[in-house]
């Protein structure tokens, strides 16, 4: 049954359906409504979990780390500065290969202070070794959250579900929440192969000399690569059980004959989709939605861009001095293709700058311009800057 729910409320309800043993979180805009809603569910007796209201994001991540190490199902959520304060723990969680689910309500990183959406936060921890899945809508965020609990259990790798702050978290949409019994049936009981247990004492998080370190890093990389198949299988299984998929590794839509493609992650996809429908005269395009940013589906991407002359990659974060983060990675992956498309990379909507539907037209125009820069902050208004800063 579909209910009108705010994104954050829907996520809280989805988490509750997965019946976590431990939830720890610290409030930060725009993640706050998620933890508020979870607290409310606990207070009303609709969610039986140990809810640990911690004194920082650093401790939020550490608490769920400890809980996960005992084999408990654990969940946390954060955004922006909170993600960065957690950063040290996030690397640690992934390095210890602990099963965990975390929502990141994507938000810009200060300075300058901005509470609005972009992807600088999750990008800053892209090398932590977490699985990172991006949702384009609230329904996808709900479904991906439920899937994440199964993915993390099967892969024993932590999963970060990224959803755009405000644009998704604070938007009310009709959401279909799966039935509690159906989720209980689909999601196996929590099990972790290396849990802390007095019956079977193990030491976790030991000191490792150079004799073993590269092998451990290699096995982490290999586990991430193997997770590609798990992410797809879990989405397929979810689809057959609940009647809808949440985007696999990536999805391709639009005109299959188009020579221009646009690749994006998160809610920007919805805007581009609407632009494509409204501005048919701008020309056809192939729209590629990347859901799994980590592990990066290189093979699937190479197939998805086959036949394209030009690929425009939309970034919601930049690496100053280089360009877009996603764009750079896509270019690196496609450089191994036999006939890679010409790649243009544009950062859009940084710090919450509104992305209008007309951006679809402007992007395709820029794609046709032979003098267009390979990278730009596409919606930056140069007249607002002093000449020396342009």
């Amino acid at each position: 049954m579909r209910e009108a729910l705010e994104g954050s409320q829907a996520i809280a309800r989805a988490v509750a359906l997965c019946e976590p043993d431990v939830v720890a979180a610290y409030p930060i805009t725009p993640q706050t409504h998620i933890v508020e809603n979870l607290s409310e569910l606990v207070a009303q007796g609709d969610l039986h979990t140990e809810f640990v209201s911690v004194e920082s994001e650093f401790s939020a991540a550490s608490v769920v780390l400890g809980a996960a190490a005992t084999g408990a199902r654990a969940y946390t959520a954060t955004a922006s500065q909170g993600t960065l304060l957690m950063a040290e723990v996030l690397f640690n969680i992934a390095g210890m290969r602990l099963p965990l689910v975390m929502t990141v309500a994507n938000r810009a990183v200060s300075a300058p202070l901005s509470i609005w959406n972009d992807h600088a936060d999750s990008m800053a921890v892209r090398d932590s070794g977490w699985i990172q899945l991006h949702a384009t809508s609230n329904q996808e965020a709900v479904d991906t959250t439920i899937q994440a609990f199964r993915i993390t259990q099967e892969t024993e790798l932590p999963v970060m579900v990224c959803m755009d702050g405000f644009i998704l978290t604070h938007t009310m949409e009709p959401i279909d929440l799966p039935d509690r019994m159906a989720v209980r049936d689909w999601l196996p009981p929590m099990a972790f192969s290396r849990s802390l247990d007095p019956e079977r004492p193990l030491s976790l998080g030991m000191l490792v000399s150079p004799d073993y370190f590269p092998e451990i890093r290699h096995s982490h990389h290999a586990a991430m690569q193997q997770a590609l198949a798990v992410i797809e299988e879990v989405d397929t299984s979810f689809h057959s059980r609940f009647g809808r998929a949440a985007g696999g590794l990536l999805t391709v839509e639009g005109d299959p004959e188009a020579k221009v493609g646009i690749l994006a992650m998160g809610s920007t996809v919805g805007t581009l989709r609407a632009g494509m429908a409204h501005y048919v005269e701008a020309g056809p395009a192939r729209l590629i939605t990347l859901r799994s940013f980590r592990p990066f589906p290189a093979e699937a991407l190479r197939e998805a861009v086959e036949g394209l002359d030009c690929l425009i990659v939309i970034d919601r974060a930049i690496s100053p001095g280089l360009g877009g983060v996603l764009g750079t990675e896509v270019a690196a992956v496609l450089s191994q293709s036999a006939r890679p498309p010409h790649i243009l990379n544009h950062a859009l909507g940084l710090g919450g700058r509104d992305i209008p539907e007309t951006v679809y037209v402007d992007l395709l125009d820029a794609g046709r311009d032979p003098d267009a820069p390979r990278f730009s902050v596409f919606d930056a208004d140069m007249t607002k800057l002093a000449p020396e800063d342009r």
Partner: protein
Amino acid sequence: MTDATRLAELRQKFGRVPEGPSDPKPGTVSPREAQPRFRGLESGHRACQGCGEALAARLVMECAGPDVIVANATGCLEVFTTAWPQSAWRVPWVHSLFENAAAVASGIEAAMKARGKNTKVLAFGGDGATYDIGFQSLSGMLERYHNVLYVCYDNEAYMNTGIQRSSSTPHAATTTTSPAGKERMGKRHLKKDLVSIIAAHHIPYAASASVAFPQDLQRKVRYAMGIEGPTFLVIHSPCPLGWKHDSRLTIDVARKAVECGLFPMVELERGSLSNVMPIRQVRPVTDYLELQGRFRHLFADDPRAEEERAHLQALADYNITTYGLTGGDPDNADTVGTAAVGRGGHPAGRLRP
């Protein structure tokens, strides 16, 4: 399964309890074998000779284990016990980071609670992890009232990185980041009064202990283990390398720290002082200082040295007055009696005939 049965089984499984009925014919069984203890922390680890921290951790584990889970902060204890692929721990043990042992322990405890288990959670950290970098997460853990015993092995500096000053380093001690020279007489600031800060959280139990008084230390661990709620123990643990004393003097140095009043042995319940270890015979601080190279500059022919010695004596006197540490009549809980009674001796300090 009852806790007692479960505990007995775990002891049998991991505790190296001698097999078969014991037949203690005099002279055939060593006192240690006759009274087996749980070895949560095994020998064979890589601690330095005379390491106070290793001794303290073994003493804690003997009476805490085996139905426990340990969250260990980064530091010497973590490094010397768990160099992959070897581990000296016979209990489930996890190390995450330097500053989050208390938060990790909080999470473990929350998971135990969620699953209805009684396994006690211990958090271990050195003074750097406890007084400094992990202070916030420790405060959070206490405030949230997690059922965790936090043990701080206090060796008064960052020993794992090579002896740098922490907020627990005593005034005037030299470390590699508080050296003595023409302009400085070692550390310029006071040792943080952590026990008082911890007690101000009004937790059920906070205490200080010393490796020089193992019976007292273990009594405090057993007491804390019996409490449902957050408890805290700081154990004064000499580091021969960092304090620059002979390895064989660890216990002597630790005892003199207590006997001069610089390391007061106190117990606080719900924020109020409930017990102290009286000092049978108070020593001058110089008896303690002169054994250690980190205070060598305080014995130089320098007026500043005399001034700093007086300063440290004043700090010890302050502790003695504040906590009422001067003993009256011989007492089986004072600095002499505790050790003597523990060895089966008489509180007055004389051994039984």
